[in-house]
C-alpha cells in the first residue's frame, strides 16, 4: 500500500484541524445553528433567545478572525455572517426594530454575492498555486508531474500538485500557535510563499494575481456595501439610539461584522500586492 494514497488531499484535510480548533469551530457552529433554531422554534423552557446566541456567535467568530486563514473556513464564515445578518430583519419582536423588506432583500443579495465572489477567489487561490490553465486548451495543468501511481496509470493531475489551503503569504507572517501547529502537522512549513507560487501564472490570458485582486476587491467592496445597507436600515429605525446598551449591541455587532470581515480579508492579502 502506498502511504500517499492514505493521505487525504489538502482541501479535505482542512476538515480535521487540531482538537482545540475543532472544538472551538464546533462551538461556533452550534451557536450559529442554535440561534437559527431558536428563531424558528423557541424553547418554552429556555429563556435564551436566538439573538443572544447570534451575538455570542459573532463575538466568537470576530475574535477568532485573525486566525482564520483557511480557504475553506473563510468563505464559510462569510456565509454564516450573512445568515446571521438576516436575523435583525426577523427577530424584531417590537415592530420598530424590523427593517423594511426591500432593505432585507438588498442586504441578502449583496451579502451572498460577496460570499460567492470570495468562494470563487478562494478556489482560484487554491488551484493557481499548483498549476495553470493552458492557453492551448488542455485545461488545468499541474506544475509537478504525478509520481505516486502505478506504471501506465496517471493519477488525477489536479490533486497531485498539492497546493496550500491557507492564506499565508509570507514566511514571517504572524501565526498563532494553533495555526503553526496545524501547518507543522501538514508538513508544509518550508513551502514557498503564496506570492512566489503565483508568479507567472495566467488565467484566461490575464495574470492570475490580477484576477485574484479583482475578485477579492469585488468581494470586499460588495461586503462593505451590504454592511452599509444594514447600517442605514438600522439607523433609520433608530436602533442604535436604544435606551439600553443590550438592545443596541446586537444590531451593532451584526452591522460591524461584514466590515470586519472585509478588513480581515484585506489584511490577509496585503502581502500579495
Amino acid at each position: 500500500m502506498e502511504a500517499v494514497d492514505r493521505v487525504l488531499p489538502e482541501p479535505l484535510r482542512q476538515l480535521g484541524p487540531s482538537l482545540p480548533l475543532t472544538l472551538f469551530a464546533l462551538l461556533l457552529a452550534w451557536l450559529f445553528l442554535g440561534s437559527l433554531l431558536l428563531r424558528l422554534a423557541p424553547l418554552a423552557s429556555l429563556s435564551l433567545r436566538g439573538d443572544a446566541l447570534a451575538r455570542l456567535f459573532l463575538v466568537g467568530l470576530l475574535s477568532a478572525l485573525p486566525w482564520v486563514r483557511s480557504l475553506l473556513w473563510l468563505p464559510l464564515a462569510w456565509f454564516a455572517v450573512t445568515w446571521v445578518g438576516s436575523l435583525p430583519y426577523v427577530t424584531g419582536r417590537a415592530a420598530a426594530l424590523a427593517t423594511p423588506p426591500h432593505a432585507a432583500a438588498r442586504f441578502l443579495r449583496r451579502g451572498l454575492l460577496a460570499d460567492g465572489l470570495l468562494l470563487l477567489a478562494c478556489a482560484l487561490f487554491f488551484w493557481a498555486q499548483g498549476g495553470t490553465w493552458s492557453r492551448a486548451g488542455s485545461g488545468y495543468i499541474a506544475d509537478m508531474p504525478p509520481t505516486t501511481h502505478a506504471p501506465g496509470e496517471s493519477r488525477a493531475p489536479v490533486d497531485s500538485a498539492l497546493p496550500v489551503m491557507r492564506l499565508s503569504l509570507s514566511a514571517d507572517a504572524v501565526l498563532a500557535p494553533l495555526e503553526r501547529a496545524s501547518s507543522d502537522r501538514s508538513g508544509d512549513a518550508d513551502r514557498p510563499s503564496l506570492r512566489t507560487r503565483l508568479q507567472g501564472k495566467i488565467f484566461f490570458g490575464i495574470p492570475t494575481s490580477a484576477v485574484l485582486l479583482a475578485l477579492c476587491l469585488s468581494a470586499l467592496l460588495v461586503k462593505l456595501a451590504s454592511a452599509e445597507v444594514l447600517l442605514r436600515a438600522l439607523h433609520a429605525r433608530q436602533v442604535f439610539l436604544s435606551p439600553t446598551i443590550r438592545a443596541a449591541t446586537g444590531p451593532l455587532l451584526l452591522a460591524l461584522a461584514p466590515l470586519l470581515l472585509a478588513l480581515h480579508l484585506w489584511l490577509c492579502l496585503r502581502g500579495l500586492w
Partner: protein
Amino acid sequence: MSQRALPAAWPCIVTVLAVSLTCAATAHAAPKLEVSASTLRIPSGPHFAASSAVTLATEHKNTHLSAEITLFNRGDAALALHGLALSPDSAGFSVAESSLKSALAEPLPPHAQRSIRVQYQPTPGRQQAYGALLIYSNDPRDTDDPRTAERDFVRSVPLCAGESTLALWLWLAPLATGLLAALLWSLRQRRAASIRWATAGLLLLSGALPLFLLGYATHAFVRGFGVAQGNYGYQFLLQRVLAQSLPLTYHAGLDGLSLILAWSLELWAALRVASLLRSLWLPSCITQPDDRAPTARCLFAHTLLHSMALALLVSLDLVPLLFSLLVLHTAMGGLLPIRPRRIFTTVAVPSFFVFVAGLCFLAAHSQPTLLSSGGFVEHTTDLVKLSYQNYFADLPLLSAAGTGLWGRPIAPALYGLLALATLAPAIGLAVLCLRSPLSAASAPTCLLPVSSLVGFYLLVRVVAGLLPQAHSVLLPSLSAFSLFACAAAAFSSALRRTVRLEQRLPALPLLVPLSGALVGLASATATGTLAALLLLGSLCLSCTWLGQRLARLPRRTSCTPQHGTAHAPKNAPDAAESPESEALRVALLLFYAPPGTATFVGHALLALSAFAALRGVSVLYVALWLVSQYFALLWLRDQPIADKPPPPARSLHAGRALILASAIACFCVLPLFELGHTWSLDFISHTRHASAPPGPGFLAHRGR
C-alpha cells in the same frame, strides 16, 4: 416354425453379444480423473479448521498457507497428467514444486491417487484471493481449453482463500428479519401486544443488523487497499458459481464507494425504521384501520427496498445487480400512492429496460473469460472483468467492417443512454416532489435519496466502469446540462401558480445537491468525488427527515385530476398552522442547509474542487447555490415569530438534534473520507484515458 429356428440361432446371438461386450469393455478402458474437492478453500486467517474434503496445513515459518488436493484415477487406463497451471487471476497461489515434479513424472495407474499441494502466500492488506488450478490430462471427459489451438483436456479446481460472507449477510439479514416482521404484521391479531412487540423487535433487528455488519466492515476495512494491491480494490469478496451451465454467478464485495454509500443508505434506513416503529404504536393502528398506520405491504416494500439497495451496492455481477434493481424499483412503486406510482412506473420501467439492453449489448461483446469455478465462459457478466478486462470504446454499432455512420464507435451514445437510464428514476421522483403540494410530497421525498444514491452508484460503478473513455469526455457536459435543468426547473416552479409557493418544496435545495454530485464526479478530483458522496449522504438525512415530517401534515381528502395530488378542503388547516409546523420548519432548515451543516460543507468543497477542471460549470454551480441560499434566507425572514411557543413535540427535539449532529458530522467526516480516498484515486485513474485531455473543459477554454 419359429420355435424350431430359435435354437439354431443361439450360437449367433451368443457370438454377437460376446463381441459387443468385448467392444464395450474396450471403449471403457479410459482414464477417469476425479478430484477430492470441488473447491479448494484456504482460510487466510490464523485460525481455521480442516475440512473433510481438503487436508490443510499451515507453514507458519514462511507465512505460507497450503492445502492438499488429491487426484484419483477411477478409470481402467493410466491417467497421463500433461501439466498443472494456475488461472491468470490466481495471484498469491502457487503449486508446490515437489508436487509439480512428482505429479508430472509418470502417469497415474488405474485406481491410484496422487496428492498436489497448493500454497497461498497472503500479501499485506489483501485478505481474499480467488483463482483456479488447471489440470491438463488425457481424460476425454474434461473440457477443451479454448485458449489453445490443439485439443487438450483440462479440469479446473477453484481456489479460494479467505472467503468472506459479510457482503451476503449485509443484505440477507435485513431481508430475512424484515420479511418476518411483515409476515407477523399481516396476521389478523394485530392488536395483540405480543405481535406488536415481535414485529417491532424484528424491524429493529432489520435496521440494526446491517449497521452492526457495516461497523465491523468499516473496522476491518484496509485503508489504502486499491487496484494496485489486488482484487481490483475490493474487500470482503465472495464468489460463487450458482449454475455452471447458464452460467449464473454471485460475486459480491465492498470497496470505498460501496461502503460510504451503504452508510448513507443505513442513515436513511435508520430514520425510516424509527418512523415505522413509532407508527406501530399509533392508537389508530391498534383500534381501527388507518392509512397512517403501516400496513404489512408497507413493511414488505420497505424491507425489499432496504435489502435490495444493499444487495445492489455489494453486487459485482450484472445478473444479481439487475435483479436487485428490478425489485428495488418495484418496492419503490409499492411505497408510492397510486397516481405518483403510475408516473414513477412510466419512467422507471422503460429506463430499466434501456439499461438492461445496453448492458446486454456490452456483455455480448465481452471477451471469453474464466469463471471463479475455473470453467470457461464465452461472455462474462462479471462487472469487474467487464470494467477492467474489456475495451468497449471502439465498439462499432454494426460490425468492425461497417462504414459511414453505422460503423462508428457507439460508446458516447451508449454512455448517454445508460447514464440517462440510471438517473431517470431519481429525476422522476424529483419531479413528483416538486409538482406535489407539501402534504402529498412525503413519499417521493422519502424515496428520492435512495433513488439518487442508487442512480449515482450505477453511473459510477457500471456506466463509468464499462465506458471510462466516454465518461471522461461526456460527464462534464452531462453535469452542465443537469445544472441548466436545475435552473429551468426552479424557474418553472416559481412561475407555477396552481399551488402556492409556501405549499411546495423549494426546487433548488432539492436539485442542486443532485447536480452537485455529478459536478463533483466530473471534477476528476478526489476532493470532488468524496464531496459528492458527502452531499448524497447528507441528502439521505435531510430529505428523509423532511419527508417524514411532511407525512405528519394534515391529510387531504380528494385528488386533483391534473397532478394526482391533493386539494385541501376549504376548512382544512394550513401546513403552517398544524401542530407539526414547528418540526416541519426545523426540517426545512436542515433541508436548506445553512452554514455549518454537512451539506453546506459539501457544497463548499465541491465549489473549490471543481474550479480547476470545470471553471464555467463551477461558476454556474456556485451561482445556483447562491440563489438557493438567497431563497432560504428569504424563507427564514418570512417565518412568523411565536410569542408563546407551543409544547414541543418529540419530533421537534429530534429535528434540533439532527441539525446539531450535522454540524458535528462536518468535523467527523474525515474517517469516512479515508475509507473512500483510495477508491476515488483508482476511479480517476480508470476513467482518465491517456488520449483524454488532462481536465474536462466544457465551458472552459479549450482550443484545438
